[in-house]
């Protein structure tokens, strides 16, 4: 790009146009694993947001000291440290959530979103831009998780965040809480987002020509 995108642009890009799950197909492992319920999904989104934000800020601070061949090592070190801090924090203050999320919090270390943002954005941009980018991507990730978790939880248990939404006579579609439901929901929602995107670009093409 001839002119680097501003912080605000980075923030907005991250939420829908460059949504990490629906558009970039990154970070699918936690997306499928923790979207059983909205509460777990939001906790994971919060954890990823914290790690992404801190990692982006720290990377941006030391970006001038980074040399090509050691930068992945340094990114990994930063991310692993913040993930450990997040994991311990959850175990101390939200013990039940920590047990539900289980091994998926440490798996944030290998979550492609964070390494990708550090590499693409934080290591080249100022602190403010990097922070805005992190918040935007985290917002997009949270949005994706929330959409999938809402569908799965409502159809699978009739509850949303523990509150009864559907009438009690709803026969719980237990398959939605199980692995097949996860894959199916993500696949169909991805198809929906792609369809919206196709329509939007078709309309833009028609307007242009």
């Amino acid at each position: 790009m001839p002119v680097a995108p501003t912080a605000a642009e980075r923030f907005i890009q991250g939420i829908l146009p460059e949504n990490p799950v629906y558009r970039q197909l990154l970070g699918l492992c936690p997306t499928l694993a923790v979207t059983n319920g909205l509460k777990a999904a939001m906790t994971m989104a919060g954890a990823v947001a914290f790690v992404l934000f801190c990692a982006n800020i720290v990377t941006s601070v030391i970006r001038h000291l980074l040399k090509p061949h050691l930068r992945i090592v340094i990114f990994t070190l930063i991310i692993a440290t913040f993930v450990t801090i997040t994991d311990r924090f959850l175990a101390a203050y939200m013990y039940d959530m920590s047990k539900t999320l289980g091994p998926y919090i440490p798996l944030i270390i290998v979550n492609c979103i964070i390494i990708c943002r550090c590499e693409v954005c934080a290591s080249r941009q100022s602190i403010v831009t990097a922070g805005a980018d992190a918040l935007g991507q985290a917002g997009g990730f949270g949005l994706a998780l929330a959409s999938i978790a809402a569908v799965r939880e409502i159809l699978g248990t009739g509850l949303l965040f523990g509150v009864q939404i559907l009438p009690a006579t709803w026969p719980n579609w237990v398959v939605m809480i199980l692995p097949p439901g996860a894959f199916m929901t993500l696949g169909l929602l991805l198809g929906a987002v792609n369809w919206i995107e196709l329509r939007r670009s078709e309309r833009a093409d028609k307007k242009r020509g």
Partner: protein
Amino acid sequence: MHYLTDIILIALGAALINNFVLYYFVGICPFIGVSRRIDMALGMGFAVTFVISIAALLSWTITTFILAPGAPVSKWVAGFFVSPEAAAQVDLTILSYVVYIFAIASSVQFVEMYVRKFYPSLYRSFGVFLPLITTNCAILFACLIIFSRIVGVDNPADAWDIGRALTLAAFGGVGFTIAITIMAGIREELELCDIPKPLRGAGITLIVASVLAMAFMGFTGVDSGLRKVLAPAAVESAQSAEK
């Protein structure tokens, strides 16, 4: 005999019943990205199995001897600085995630160098996937399971030994290979189908994966049934109590 039963059940569990991709949702990115052709899928599967075994070996060794509370090496080193009672309480588990990810990254590097130097034909078939494997959730996940079976048990005598750890890792990789190869076979057939545009690529892969996951759910309970067959003595004494 008890040990062999355990190994068989862990292997079956990791490969089929609790399949890494279709039950635990790890390794999804290569599962969707690399499953277009069967030969690529097989190559990726072999690479993952290889690296996961080495990483499990490394992480078991490091956890048992350095990281776990009261581990031999850290106890010995700390013994130089503090009293023996305090040295026995040294607990380095806080560093486990950092150590694991570096162990995985370095094992991937070494495997790549080794294979490129000594097995060039092998490198041509699956070496190109090796750098991608560092961010493969499956490897770190296997290390985390091993960690929880060493450090997370109430009774130190139940902590996993190297055999169980390697079995879990290797057969987890085998399960990943099975899942990705089946998916590749299906996708090769799907190329001839007329898939709606929004669903092409990742969308249809995920929907097929959901059907695959449903199929693999049929394996639930196989291990508890096998346990009854393979270890009848222990179960009999409990069942006679049940009658």
